[in-house]
């Protein structure tokens, strides 16, 4: 089972007539890490278990049971993310966006958010939409922003739903239909 703990990421974009850049507020954990002893966790992580790698990354990030160290956190998230762990991909996205434990790099942030978004992670879909809307790390594309907001909205994200509606103001009917059918195709492919 995937560990749901994620970094909180709040993006401010919604204002009619203007965009603001995404902003990271707290790096606070949604859920406490499990209680596996550190030694066992390290062993599992070193043996390549991506959930263990993600959790070890979290412990480094929060300084739980060891000295806080974002550099090591980044390294463990990276290992887990390479194995397609979407929580780790999301966190790598946030850390790249803010230069935490690594050099800030918006294009790399987009790459990791995209992988997590394709893996069906709603916060990543939301963030990817914000990045598309603001043209951060990627060419601005309001249609794709709309599509990713719609997908996050379909997964129950209310802010994303509000954003999707707002973006419809800025798109032609044809563009909206195109975005909706792209979203539909994405969902069908994802559910296969």
């Amino acid at each position, binding site marked *: 089972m995937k560990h749901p703990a994620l970094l909180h990421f709040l993006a401010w974009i919604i204002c009619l007539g203007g965009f603001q850049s995404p902003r990271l507020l707290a790096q606070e954990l949604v859920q406490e890490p499990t209680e596996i002893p550190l030694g066992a966790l390290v062993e599992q992580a070193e043996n390549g278990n991506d959930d263990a790698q993600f959790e070890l990354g979290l412990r480094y990030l929060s300084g739980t049971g060891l000295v806080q160290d974002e550099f*090591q956190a980044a390294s463990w998230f990276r290992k887990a993310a390479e194995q397609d762990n979407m929580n780790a991909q999301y966190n790598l996205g946030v850390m790249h966006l803010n230069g935490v434990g690594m050099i800030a790099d918006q294009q790399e942030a987009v790459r990791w958010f995209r992988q997590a978004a394709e893996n069906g992670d709603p916060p990543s879909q939301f963030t990817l939409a914000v990045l598309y809307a603001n043209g951060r790390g990627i060419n601005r594309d309001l249609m794709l922003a709309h599509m990713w907001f719609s997908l996050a909205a379909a997964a129950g994200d209310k802010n994303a739903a509000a954003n999707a509606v707002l973006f419809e103001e800025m798109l032609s009917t044809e563009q909206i239909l195109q975005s909706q059918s792209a979203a539909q195709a994405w969902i069908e492919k994802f559910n296969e």
Partner: protein
Amino acid sequence: MTSPCSARIAVRTAAIVFSLCVSLLALPLHADFERGMAAYEAGDFPAALAEFTEGAAIGHALSQYNLGLMYHQGIGTAQDYERALQLFALSAQQGLVRAQYYLASMYDNGQGVAQDYREAYHWYQQAAEQGDAAAQYAVGTMNFYGQGKRTDYAAALDWYTKAAEQDHGDSQYNLGVMYINGFGTEADPAQALQWFVRAARNGSADAQFNAALMYNNGQGTAQDFGRAMRYFKMAALQGVPEAMARIGILFASGQGVAQDYVQARQWFEAAAQLGDVPAQSFLGRLYMSGMGMPQDPVSAYMWYKLAHDNGDNAALAVMSALQANMNKEQVSEAEQRLTNWLQQNPQASKP
């Protein structure tokens, strides 16, 4: 030079370097020319000028070219761009590649004549078609920027490829940029990396950095921190601060190397001295927790303040957190230390 391939294509104006042609074999030598060369090599420039003038007068292309260079550089005579241009033109019309190239670059730079990209393009193209790599690069660049003709990325790509295959470093770098961004072709990171690697071997620091970044991120290649480290080090040796900061990160996180805070700090310091802001704040981070050294809030505050002064807004929150556990003397000591350090390292501060 930050984001993956903060790739950039620089217009490089053709640098005119004085070099006499001694061994252009395709053209017949001539007695005046040989005497001119002998005089030139003996350092008797007025005599060389006289001999080349005679050779030029009877239409000897190499003499015209060499005489043109002497006027262009003002050797043995006053500098005279207009004469140089005329002589290069005479020689270029006879098909001498170098003369065509220099004639083109004079039109390109507006030397001895009003700047004229069309003429420049024409003569670069003549030399390029004869296989001159520098001219092929120039034709590629003019196609890229739309100078002397309309922008044509596909043509730019072709000419850069011709020059790059002759190991022309700037063309290899620009090809990398075009392949990564998909100019004149489908974006192709693997091809881009291949050209960055070749340009890197030819000494381009930008190419070294870009290749390193692509290995670091696994772009166009399997992810490979070892190779990333190697190319970052090549760029760092050429003084690229972003490369130094990246090496610091690899050491701090133990990616591609054994984890080592001390090395991380040394690389961050080197980058920080050259004004790299992330490195300045990462140094603060190391001192704050005592990573690889005793904990030192005064130094931590100093580095975060420097980063903040250089525009890192996120540093402010850390500074106030640090300040909460410092007394007034410590804060002013940190500020004093920063002032002193900046006097030693003026490059560390953003203008």
